[in-house]
């Protein structure tokens, strides 16, 4: 059964009205069961951990299995032992972070002295970044310091970030930066 948004609202309000007159003999069970099913029947359900503070609250994400495949709803996970379904204002708004028209969805490039961005491809951007890294690194690389000790580093490239990445990404990122010889590696924990 296809249910459009209008029908969904009708069912929901019927549920609300039904609850209000619950003592009058209506059998609400089928309506409630149907309303509960809508969220899951046409959606993939996954669990996540909130991306804001470090309490580590659990949330449930419902993603549409149809159409655009986007997020339908995000809510607190009642089976998570820390938050037991509760979320703060930010956590309760998680859907707006994901389904947000202000998001960057394309690599952008700003040329020296330019006054605007231009849209570029991933390959184009990554190839040029790799070239810049090589040029700067090779021009600045220090094999030995003034005392003659081996240092094998560059102080002309720096990196900050990121506590917003997953553990596995953090590990991979630091490995790459250290392999390049960076010593200026910092992130949110320092500030």
């Amino acid at each position: 059964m296809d249910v459009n948004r209008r029908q969904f609202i009708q069912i929901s309000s019927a549920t609300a009205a039904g609850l209000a007159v619950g003592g009058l003999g209506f059998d609400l069970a089928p309506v409630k069961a149907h309303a509960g099913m809508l969220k899951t029947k046409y959606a993939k359900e996954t669990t996540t951990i909130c991306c804001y503070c470090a309490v580590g609250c659990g949330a449930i994400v419902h993603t549409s299995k149809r159409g655009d495949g986007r997020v339908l709803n995000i809510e607190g996970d009642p089976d998570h032992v820390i938050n037991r379904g509760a979320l703060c204002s930010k956590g309760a708004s998680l859907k707006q972070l994901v389904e947000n028209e202000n998001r960057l969805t394309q690599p952008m490039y700003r040329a020296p002295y330019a006054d605007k961005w231009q849209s570029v491809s991933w390959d184009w951007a990554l190839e040029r970044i790799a070239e810049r890294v090589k040029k700067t690194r090779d021009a600045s690389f220090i094999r030995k310091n003034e005392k003659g000790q081996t240092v094998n580093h560059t102080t002309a490239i720096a990196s900050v970030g990121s506590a917003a990445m997953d553990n596995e990404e953090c590990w991979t990122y630091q490995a790459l930066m250290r392999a390049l010889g960076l010593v200026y590696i910092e992130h949110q924990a320092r500030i």
Partner: protein
Amino acid sequence: MTNHWIDIKNSDCILIMGSNAAENHPVSFKYVTQAMENGATLISVDPRFTRTSAKADIYTSLRSGTDIAFLGGMIKYILDNGRFNQEYISLYTNAPFIVGKSFKFKNGLFSGYEKNAKGPAAGKYDKSKWAFEMDDKGVPRMDRRLKHKRCVFQLLKKHYQRYDLKTVSKITGTAVADLKRVYEAYSTTGTRGKAGTIMYAMGWTQHTTGTQNIRTMSIIQLLLGNMGVAGGGVNALRGESNVQGSTDHCLLWHIWPGYLKTPRASNTTLTAYNEKWTPSSNDPLSANWWQNYPKYSVSLLKSFFGDKAGAANDFGYEWLPKVDDGAVYSWFDLFDAMYKEKIKGFFAWGQNPACSGSNANKIREAMGKLDWMVNVNLFDNETGSFWQGPGMTPGDIKTEVFMLPACVSVEKEGSITNSGRWMQWRYQGPKPMGNSRPDGDIILALGEKIKEVYRDGGVFPEPIANLKWDYTTNGMYDPHKVAREINGYFLKDVTIKGTTYPKGSLVPSFAFLQADGSTSSGNWLYCNSYTEKGNMAARRKHKDAVNQIGLYPEFAWCWPVNRRIIYNRASVDAKGVPWDRRDWVIYFRGNEKDGKYVSKKWLGDVPDGGWYPMQNPDGSWRDDSKYPFIMRKHGHGQIFGPGLADGPFPEHYEPLECPVEKNYLNPQMLNPTAAIYATAADAHATCDPRFPYVATTYRVSEHWQTGLMTRTQSWLMELQPQMFVEMSEELARLKGIQNGQRVMVRSARGQVECSAIVTKRFKPFRIGSLTVHQVGIPWHYGWRWPSNGKEESANLLTPPAGDPNTRIPETKAFMVNVAKR
């Protein structure tokens, strides 16, 4: 956190200081409330009456930057009134250690001080002057009775003798009666079976005395026997979902994954490096866990370089960068170097320094001196678009900027680690929006491109060519492959205690790691997180500990080795009996014969090492036990901390910018080892009539950090639409400011337009004969969002100085002026 979120419910007294948990970690209050329902006392100490204060049994205020004076007074109160746990401190802490004769404290300086000729650190100490006396076996000399005049306990008494109620009150602006109420309530947790906890956040760290603020509380927790117990501990409420994990994996200049040291130039070989950083103890009762250092460093090198790392080439040690001895490459130093045009290329990966760094005008100016910048984020931000920000002329700025779209966490898979050290797995819901990608894919693809450009040669290409980079499945980044690498593998068949672990299998825990190259582990602390039993972080079982203290040992996974409360062997007395018989964490239940323990069995949490208790039931001492603070060289909790840059005991110093001309405790105004920066963009002004009011920054529930992820959302912006400054009714009257009016807040470094919130939440302080006003500002705004460009970052105002140990900026105490527009 030494403990974890749910554990707060076990506390008898909760001190929230340097944090506004109800506002910034709202779900933590589920457990604060539970504790209170069970009779716990909640104390809130904050310059401002916050949402946390509104829930507290006891609230009092202090002037920003005076926490050591406040807590030093509590140490004195605990000592004067005998509130400490004598048995605990004499056996488990270094209170009985004898300090050498060269240790002195005079005129606000410890022995061994030397002023620096050039900054940023104002001075440094020769820490050898603070060393413990050793016996002829090389074990620290101790007086377990705590009577020796140079034992730590007696020196502590002497040091805090000066922190009497009147002096403290004159510094902090807190009424003497309030100080007494707080000290009395908190120090009752020194009673056997009672637990007190501290919930702190950036309100303690962001000071030129940040590390020592926390040290002061650690001393209190040790004195009261609150370390290792349920409802106790020292609990940093970390502010980012994975800042614990990103710290564990060491996206920081000074450490390698698992808190190993970044090698110094003087550590010329792997052997020299391991020798330098592996502590040794001659005390058979000290576990000295870091003696395993070489196993962790070699296993890490194997994860970096795989088959290319072998004994013949020092496991690739030479390929990794060394830092110059004595040099510092911290955040402040990084942007100082960028400002001085020494940095040409810059990655701002998932971070917005144009708004998050202290003295952000300097950072924004510095970014104009780069050749290129890579900005990876969910949204365009003040960093990537700095060249078109306020006061910038794009035509004058050469910096080339690549802005790469990362996807949101629910669009990818992987793990994060919360403040309680719980590693939790997240799953992919929708696919990445548009052309955005998981950071993992971007990192791997960039690594591939860089490897390509070095294929035809370049300067020292070995580390790039040899970097193990096989973390894809079907061409896509595979977080499971990295998670397994972080855990670590046996790289050949290895037999340990009669069991053979086959080549290619996952290492069960870090106790199995080897220093000969036969194991890999990207981070020894996470070894045990992804084993042959599966992905431990993905577990969801609800079974609790038998006494329902909220350990949930099979829900997610926590480091180290799933130990939910660290230092838990200090939660029992010498015979292995818990101080708290109800909310116990571990309990020794080995068999007993003739007054002696004859078999080992611990119940409860994973103990900090499974050795026998220190004593038998008949009171005889065992020689096969270990002291509980296993990560310390001498096995004892450190009341005396001889490793810190600014002294073994915390001492009160004023912030770089302060409203008083005198430090009432010693003749030094500023921490004599603080880091202060000195370019033309680093102005500061203390006791300056142009900037008469103390200011502090903070957060609100509806926004997050620089606000980039929340300023772009309509619901949250409706709740907290604009930059504001909170001030007392008295200050508003003085300045003729009306509630809601737009005003300018200025410091020696910049200005920010704000809406005035005139409130009873701030009250003027009486500091000596002075009336001191304090104001507060959130730091969530920036010109890019909302797009009217009028709401700016509080960090345009914050100062160019940091803590000597960490160089964390002093954004919680500085001086400003407020005026009508």
